[in-house]
């Protein structure tokens, strides 16, 4: 098992190889490649329906160098539970093909549709049963695969094809589901938010999540150039702005004696210590076409102020929880 440094990890071969058919500049593969670098050895990956699944496994091709299994939209966590239970049984009986490996990591990748909306009950069940697996939520904030429909993960005000901004509504009228809080409330041993703009942070958190005994949850933001309407080269830049404007703060949450202990990660901790470094919400919104109606034809000051206030409140609550 190698130590997590950029140099060490850059030499590790990728689990997801070239030739997949995701859009140019897609963040999903960046998330998968960075998370899979942190695995300890033999790994089994399960994947829910979504962009990642349809474009990496177009028959007869596969981009996966590890055992990988696709299942329906709703049951990726249930599939991972089954695999984990099988591994446990093989270890106990000391027979079967997986018994010779001391550790087998089980990782699930699912999009926001497969987590916020459709797969929530399977995920909730798997966490409640306490299976030892890592669930990675790749959150691109809409059903991008089928043509940018709104999901439970779409933030307030974002224009999608089923919540189009126009004369009647200004984008989505509801707010984003607090998925991290829902998962933490289950008593999950380790929950963290990751952002591919900080690769070392992603890999360290992924390694921690894999090492923890019990269900773990990683929430990653995946800017989507098609759905969020920005040029493909800005993918990582927009992700970084999301953290710098505190729209998507980076934190870890462990359970100590039945109590959740929050800890801000370095990029967010720097903002908490020096609030003047926090960028205004406009910096993040202006870059994206899905928020174009906030600025054109006229700048909607009231709406921007409302959004900034809600972001500030959420950031304040998180800082209080983390004790900063």
């Amino acid at each position, binding site marked *: 098992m190698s130590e997590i440094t950029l140099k060490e990890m850059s030499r590790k071969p990728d689990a997801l190889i070239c*030739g997949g058919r995701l859009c140019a500049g897609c963040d999903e593969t960046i998330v998968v490649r960075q998370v899979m670098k942190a695995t300890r050895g033999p790994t089994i990956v399960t994947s829910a329906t979504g962009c990642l699944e349809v474009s990496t496994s177009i028959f007869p091709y596969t981009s996966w160098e590890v055992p990988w299994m696709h299942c329906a939209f709703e049951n990726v966590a249930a599939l991972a539970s089954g695999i984990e239970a099988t591994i446990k049984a093989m270890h106990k009986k000391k027979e079967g093909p997986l018994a010779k490996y001391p550790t087998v990591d089980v990782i699930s990748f699912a999009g926001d549709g497969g987590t916020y909306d459709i797969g929530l009950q399977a995920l909730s069940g798997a966490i409640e049963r306490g299976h030892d697996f890592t669930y990675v939520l790749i959150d691109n904030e809409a059903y991008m695969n089928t043509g940018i429909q709104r999901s439970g993960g779409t933030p307030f005000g974002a224009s999608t094809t089923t919540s189009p901004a126009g004369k009647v509504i200004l984008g989505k009228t509801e707010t984003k589901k607090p998925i991290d809080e829902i998962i933490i409330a289950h008593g999950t041993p380790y929950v963290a938010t990751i952002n591919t703009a900080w690769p070392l942070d992603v890999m360290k958190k992924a390694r921690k999540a894999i090492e923890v005994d019990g269900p773990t949850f990683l929430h990653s933001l995946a800017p989507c150039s098609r759905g969020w309407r920005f040029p493909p080269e800005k993918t990582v830049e927009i992700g970084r702005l999301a953290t710098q404007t505190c729209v998507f703060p980076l934190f870890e949450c462990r359970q100590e004696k039945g109590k959740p202990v929050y800890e801000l990660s370095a990029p967010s901790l720097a903002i908490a210590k020096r609030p003047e470094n926090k960028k205004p919400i406009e910096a993040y919104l202006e870059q994206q076409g899905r928020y174009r109606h906030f600025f054109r034809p006229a700048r909607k000051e009231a709406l921007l102020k409302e959004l900034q206030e809600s972001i500030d409140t959420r950031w304040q609550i998180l800082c209080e929880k983390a004790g900063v």
Partner: protein
Amino acid sequence: MSERKRGWKTLPKGAVPYKSSKDYQTGDWGVAKPIIDRTRCSKCTLCHFFCPEGAITVRVDGYTEVNYDYCKGCGVCANECPVKCIKMEMKK
């Protein structure tokens, strides 16, 4: 693509893909390709981690190298390079 496709008698059961996607080259998707200026490269290897395609690999000497057979020309590497030594050049 010209070879004869396998029929149902010879295909593996359970829709298991039998080919690696390395056989499917996506290098002709893009309109631009990244050129790395090695005289200014600081060997930080960040472009390897940020490449969505996994087309940038790290050589033994520490420099990174782009595999143009798979690069889709998104430009993330050029945008994120801390010393700005990667330039996107239009394909002819």
